[in-house]
């Protein structure tokens, strides 16, 4: 494993997202039909480009094929019904390749972007000029990142409550079922959440 991060890893998440959206848009245009003749090599070229990007990110195309393999069911699901309905093969190939390519590109983005970096750039984007109207509508950058942090904190707390409730119910000779567990879970979670809000207020946090 190479520890050095690729240029794709280091690219700012905002730019990467923009590039991703434009690439997906580009391969989604029905280029093959522009002049009336089929050119399925255009989406195929897109796929090759994506493989190249994976190679750039992970210094081998192994990861590309790994992700492609993950999509096998989806690919079958998209192709088989169309073939059964008699859609011409090049059209089917074109559309399948396009969907596959879009999924692979979006996954590449996720694979090369740390969640924290993405959180930071969301906060940064909200501070930027174009998005200032959103801020004026009340969507403060600090509030958004605070909400992210709070949710990530809350997930382990919820799992802790689930464990305690399961235990308490089995101790009473009860098989914990979703309904039985959910009411105490909601009560414990809401109380935790209200106490948490108070502690935040005491630390001078405002929304």
């Amino acid at each position, binding site marked *: 494993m190479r520890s050095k991060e690729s240029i794709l890893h280091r690219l700012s998440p905002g730019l990467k997202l923009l590039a991703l959206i434009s690439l997906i848009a580009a391969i989604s245009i029905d280029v093959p039909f522009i002049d009336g003749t089929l050119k399925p090599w255009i989406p195929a070229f897109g796929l090759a480009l994506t493989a190249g990007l994976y190679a750039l990110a992970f210094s081998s195309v192994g990861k590309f094929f790994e992700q492609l393999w993950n999509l096998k069911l989806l690919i079958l699901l998209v192709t088989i019904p169309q073939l059964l309905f008699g859609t011409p093969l090049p059209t089917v190939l074109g559309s399948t390749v396009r969907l596959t390519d879009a999924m692979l590109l979006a996954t590449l983005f996720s694979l090369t972007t740390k969640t924290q970096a993405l959180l930071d750039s969301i906060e940064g984007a909200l501070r930027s000029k174009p998005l200032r109207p959103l801020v004026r509508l009340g969507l403060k950058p600090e509030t958004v990142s605070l909400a992210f942090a709070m949710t990530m904190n809350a997930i382990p707390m919820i799992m802790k409550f689930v464990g305690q409730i399961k235990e308490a119910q089995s101790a009473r000779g009860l098989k914990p079922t979703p309904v039985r567990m959910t009411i105490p879970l*909601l009560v414990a979670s809401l109380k935790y*959440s209200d106490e948490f*809000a108070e502690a935040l207020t005491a630390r001078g946090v405002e929304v």
Partner: protein
Amino acid sequence: MAASNKITLRDLSRIAIFAAIIAALTFPGAIPLGTGVPITLQTLGVMLAGVVLGGFRGALAVALYVVLGLIGLPIFAEHSSGFGVLAGPSAGFLLGFIPGAFVTGLIAHSGSKFSVVRTLIGSLVGGIAVVYAIGIPVMAGNLQVDLATATGYSTPFLPGDLIKVALTVVIAFGLNRAYPKAFKN
């Protein structure tokens, strides 16, 4: 119960908690159907968010959940995550969760106190109708099949989702008796 749209820290905390609850509902697992969209417990969380928090706050909780999943937390069905799902067959369901919780809450909170009937109607309309109305067409689009086929792919969800509506009503009814403060914003 017509609550204002001004978000306090206490609201924000409850919104975060419900986003986390929906995430936690994906941990027990999912039943794959071979269509790329499995049977999951997420809609239970979506309906509860609307019923407990009300439309506006409930929708924010679900939006928070969706965004966190999109940016990489493995909290979507079958521990998936990332922007990739937006190109996949379940994209519309995920996005539909947001208006789904909104409509659920709007209907459930439309009276001045807790009502089983409004909770039931809210969950049916918001948690099923709205979610499917967005989920099925997007599925058709992303899988490049026609609407009828996508609807066919989605009918196996109905029994499970109806059970989840029933669960929502039973849970909300119990919660209102055990801890009525839960519904006060």
